[in-house]
């Protein structure tokens, strides 16, 4: 089985889906000749031609809106937002149009679009190249938001997103692009959207997180194992709509729950996860539900000291798990 980086898994999924289905095409800024600013679409322009890997004008609302129109016609567009931070001009198209199309037309029309965007910090990206924007979209029924944590999940979930008949926002952690490498099967496989995944079994503390948080939690869990703390890690994988069943099960398992996001704390995805646990697991809880998240400041500053202060990391995760274990 070949070892792939997170971003190579993105490219592999795109390439395989374009080969499988001629309706699949990519559009976005710099995705063509350059192959994307991160290289996610590298080689695809040469392999599939200009109109299947289309360099668009620099206009995010058009990228989303034109993609939506093509999807309504029956194409399978994969739109790339160069950075999740730049998705904002396209929010009207995504929320007012893509999310509501099936519902507002009473199932007459649908929008099978996948919108990919690199998100996340810890890369000296400052305010507008570091944000986590999932919470903006996470109360919009009609949308699905997928945020994979491993190269294996990237390939299976991106393929599932492209094949999904509803709009999917696919957020890729840009720090994970070249940091995370793992075995990824060459053959075709898809993973279910809407299902969380247990990344580590444990009995002392439950960590529920997604994206790079999973990686940090796994690192922390390994260190804590030596100290006799057994961590259970649930990777949400799809952050909207949430896999309530898996969340409840994971919370009940240990009764001590740590929720992690890299996003600002207030109004983040994990607040909703906390609410699900509070609604369903009162008599299983052995400690207050804890949240580890970025501070409530507009975004991540550029200066390395401030950036580090903002970001979660394995040490912060380790401390938070330990706190719960000792509670």
């Amino acid at each position, binding site marked *: 089985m070949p070892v792939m980086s997170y971003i190579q898994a993105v490219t592999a999924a795109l390439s395989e889906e374009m080969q499988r289905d001629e309706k699949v*095409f990519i559009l976005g800024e710099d995705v063509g000749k350059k192959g994307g600013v991160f290289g996610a679409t590298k080689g695809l322009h040469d392999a599939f031609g200009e*109109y*299947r890997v*289309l360099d*668009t*004008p620099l*206009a995010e*609302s*058009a990228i*989303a*809106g*034109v*993609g*939506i*129109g*093509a*999807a*309504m*016609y*029956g*194409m399978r*567009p994969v739109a790339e937002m160069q950075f999740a931070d730049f998705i904002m*001009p396209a929010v*009207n*198209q995504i929320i*007012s*149009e893509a999310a*509501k*199309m*099936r*519902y*507002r*037309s*009473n*199932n*007459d*029309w*649908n929008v099978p679009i996948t919108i990919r965007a690199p998100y996340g910090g810890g890369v000296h990206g400052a305010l507008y190249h570091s944000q986590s924007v999932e919470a903006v979209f996470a109360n919009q*029924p*009609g949308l*699905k938001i997928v945020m994979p944590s491993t190269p294996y999940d990237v390939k299976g979930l991106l393929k599932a997103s492209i094949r*999904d*008949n*509803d709009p999917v926002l696919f957020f890729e952690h840009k720090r994970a692009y070249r940091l995370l490498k793992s075995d990824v099967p060459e053959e075709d496989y898809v993973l279910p959207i809407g299902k969380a995944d247990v990344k580590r079994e444990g009995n002392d503390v439950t960590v529920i997180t997604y994206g790079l948080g999973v990686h940090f939690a796994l690192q922390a869990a390994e260190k804590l194992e030596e100290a006799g703390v057994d961590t259970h890690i649930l990777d949400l994988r799809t952050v909207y709509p949430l896999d309530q069943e898996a969340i409840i099960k994971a919370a009940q398992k240990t009764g001590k729950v740590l929720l992690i996001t890299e996003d600002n704390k207030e109004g983040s995805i994990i607040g909703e996860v906390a609410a699900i646990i509070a609604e369903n697991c009162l008599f299983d809880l052995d400690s207050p539900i804890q949240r580890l998240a970025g501070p409530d400041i507009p975004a991540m500053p550029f200066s390395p000291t401030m950036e580090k202060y903002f970001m979660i990391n394995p040490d912060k995760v380790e401390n938070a798990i330990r706190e719960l274990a000792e509670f």
Partner: protein
Amino acid sequence: MAKNRHESLGLTDEQAVDMYKHMLLARKIDERMWLLNRAGKIPFVISGQGQEASQIGASFALDRNNDYAAPYYRDMGVVLAFGMTAKELMLSAFAKAEDPNSGGRQMPSHFGQKKNRILSQSSPVTTQVPHAVGVALAAKMEKKDFASFVTLGEGSTNQGDFHEGLNFAGVHKLPVITMVENNKYAISVPLDKQIASTNVSDRAHSYGMPGVTVDGNDPLAVYEAVKKARERAVNGEGPTLIEAVSYRFTAHSSDDDDRQYRESAEVEEAKKKDAIISFAAYLKETDTMTEKQEQEIRSEIDSIVNDATDYAENAAYPEPESALKYVYEE
């Protein structure tokens, strides 16, 4: 006798009369909806009175069996021409389960019907422009020879999506026909407070496409302009921007009182150019339609509108719990 213009445009007498019929049907349904609203039977009306000539003239220039339409909320004429029925429009006005546009989910005039290739619309304006461009992009990729037709009001041309959409279409020479129905008002704000250029069509230049302004009260003039644009589109020559100038006869919607911002004299003056009257006169003057034919058409339309109203009024509402359906594929 007036000069016969439709023949030289390639329209038969039957087609010309059919255009009139569609214009009149749109007008009559619209008028009925206002009555129903004022009688407290339907909550909301937003109308296209005064714009029927533009809508029907344009639609008849298209291939209504293959082209795609992304209409805006005043386009009752467009959707009728593309195959939606009076009954279906009334079902939408009454928010009944059978409404094909949205099953009673959206306000009236938020058109959409896949079988007739009418793209579903929302309330935030101009979002349909990039959609139409997307459909045109698909046509180009799939090497199909249909065109994508999108309409909007002149106020909406100030939105980013107008600029982003037209620029995209221009860069990639996509088969899109954009028709701005300039009815002089964006709710209460008149044209000169909306755009600084004389014509909306002036904007076309910067998108690398031709821009033309036509008399929106003249269905044949609009027909001619759209027909030309469609030829360009399917020949791979790219998009066209058409501005059809008319006037909005009614208030913005049933919730608006236009006396707050415009003189009734201005409205009366505009109504003298009502295309329903002038086009009927043209057809009779050119011996295309007889007096008797006109009477027959009028009574036929009356019964269509009556039947549609009765049917829709008596049709079932959606089941309350059906509100939960179709968020995602089921």
